[in-house]
């Protein structure tokens, strides 16, 4: 028996094809607009020379300072590198602690789950006025925090406070806090509602449902995402060294500017090692919580 009515798909193949073509077209246009050609990838004589020297040292990083004259009292290269690494990790950890706090608090206000969802009684006065206003304001605030990159925040904060550790930590914590708030609130709002519904049926309030029905359900994902952001924080913290903070970035910049490419690789490998180690450790932790 043939069912009656409209048999056409709601989103037909032809429309999908058109959307796909438009996306491809946008990509091609971007390349053309930027006036790119593969010829630009062929460096000039001097550039090629530097590139050869630089990449030539990839497999022979320096184990001692390559500078012709080292000021007296300077620690050996490896110690210097490890000190910078330690600072990098500490900055990242401080920034991440601050952004986790921001993310959890702002994430609550950026979530709708705790003030919507009761099937009975319509919306209370609070849920019609204050809650949506706070929600909207929080979404705006976190959007603003995220839309400025940590490097730009660092630039602004440096102008205000100078090269203090707090400036670097806050510069990372602002956009990271905004991102965590957005992702956390979405993970919580999208968590399975069936347990939440059961708690509501037992008389739980919206806030209780949020903390004891939805957050526990979203926690493994939140944890995994926080670990990933810590990895990002390590990179950000390293990059802020280019502004003069005592992180790996500063060592990289100084060695690079002095053409001591072996030293650059030493610093990069040290950073890479810590990120890989951290990844392995967080993988272990995730297995414990998620499995």
């Amino acid at each position: 028996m043939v069912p009656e009515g409209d048999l056409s798909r709601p989103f037909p193949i032809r429309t999908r094809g058109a959307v796909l073509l438009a996306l491809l077209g946008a990509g091609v246009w971007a390349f053309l607009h930027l006036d790119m050609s593969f010829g630009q990838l062929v460096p000039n004589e001097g550039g090629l020379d530097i590139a050869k020297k630089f990449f030539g040292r990839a497999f022979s990083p320096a184990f001692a300072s390559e500078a012709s004259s080292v000021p007296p009292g300077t620690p050996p290269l490896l110690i210097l590198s490890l000190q910078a690494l330690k600072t990098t990790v500490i900055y990242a950890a401080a920034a991440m602690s601050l952004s986790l706090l921001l993310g959890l608090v702002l994430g609550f206000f950026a979530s709708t789950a705790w003030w919507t969802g009761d099937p009975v009684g319509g919306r209370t006065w609070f849920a019609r006025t204050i809650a949506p206003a706070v929600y909207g304001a929080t979404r705006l605030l976190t959007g603003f925090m995220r839309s400025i990159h940590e490097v730009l925040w660092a630039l602004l904060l440096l102008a205000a406070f100078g090269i203090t550790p707090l400036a670097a930590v806050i510069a990372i914590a602002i956009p990271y806090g905004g991102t965590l708030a957005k992702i956390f609130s979405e993970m919580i709002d999208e968590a399975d509602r069936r347990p939440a519904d059961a708690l509501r049926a037992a008389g739980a309030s919206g806030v209780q449902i949020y903390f004891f029905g939805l957050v526990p359900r979203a926690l493994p994902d939140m944890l995994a995402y926080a670990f990933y952001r810590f990895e990002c924080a390590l990179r950000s913290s390293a990059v802020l060294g280019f502004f003069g903070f005592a992180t790996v970035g500063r060592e990289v910049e100084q060695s690079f500017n002095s053409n001591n490419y072996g030293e650059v690789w030493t610093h990069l490998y040290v950073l890479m090692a810590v990120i890989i180690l951290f990844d392995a450790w967080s993988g272990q932790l995730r297995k414990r919580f998620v499995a």
Partner: protein
Amino acid sequence: MIMQGKASGFRLEGVTVRFGTTAALQDVDLTIEAGEAVALVGPSGAGKSTLLRLLNGMVRPDEGVVHVNGDTLGNLSRRALRDVRAAIGFVHQDLSLVPNLRVVQNVMAGRLGQQGLFASARSMLLPSKTATARAYEILERVGIAEKLYERTDTLSGGQQQRVALARALFQRPVALLADEPVSSVDPARARDTVELLTRVSREEGLTLVMSIHNLELARSCFPRLVGLRGGRVVFDARADGVGDDEFHALYDLDEAEMLADGA
């Protein structure tokens, strides 16, 4: 506020519930006395779940009134509605537990409706000895005491059903509502679970209303059966008075319905 230890009666008067344009329940009158055990039977889509959710204030009637132990649900403030919900245990059809919490935490969650935010945080994270002892005692009654500190999702479906019952009992309810509690367990377990629910309700003096697909099981475990079809009550009878005629009234498809289902 409903007094504890006093069983809860329910009364529906001319209740109609619509979801969009379809009526889930139409002009239903039903009285369930305190302490009674009633099975709601009927095909899927008959309105059994909606009726149960009316009884604990999780669905609002479009027409008619719902009384729970003398209170009219429509007139209650939000806080008072939460008190009514807190006094009624609900065992759900699908998995309603937080899977990555410990069993003890899921049981403790039954008391959220009777606690403020800080008290509930304490009982979820650092429960007192007396609360833990009570959770253990209830789990013992439903036969899974040894699972107290297991992660809930490591339990089998039938065991999780028991945790859900333990959570409902932890509320110290005056009535138990159960929505197809055995739809996902095998027949032997189904009888065990239904008998457990009826026995516990009888011992505690709780009103019990359970929706159940299996007419045979309903007839052997409940003194009173209410048959629903298409959102209407088609019979309301003592279990020994439910025979073939009632069965056909519930499950025989007329021609129009066959066509509608077969499309």
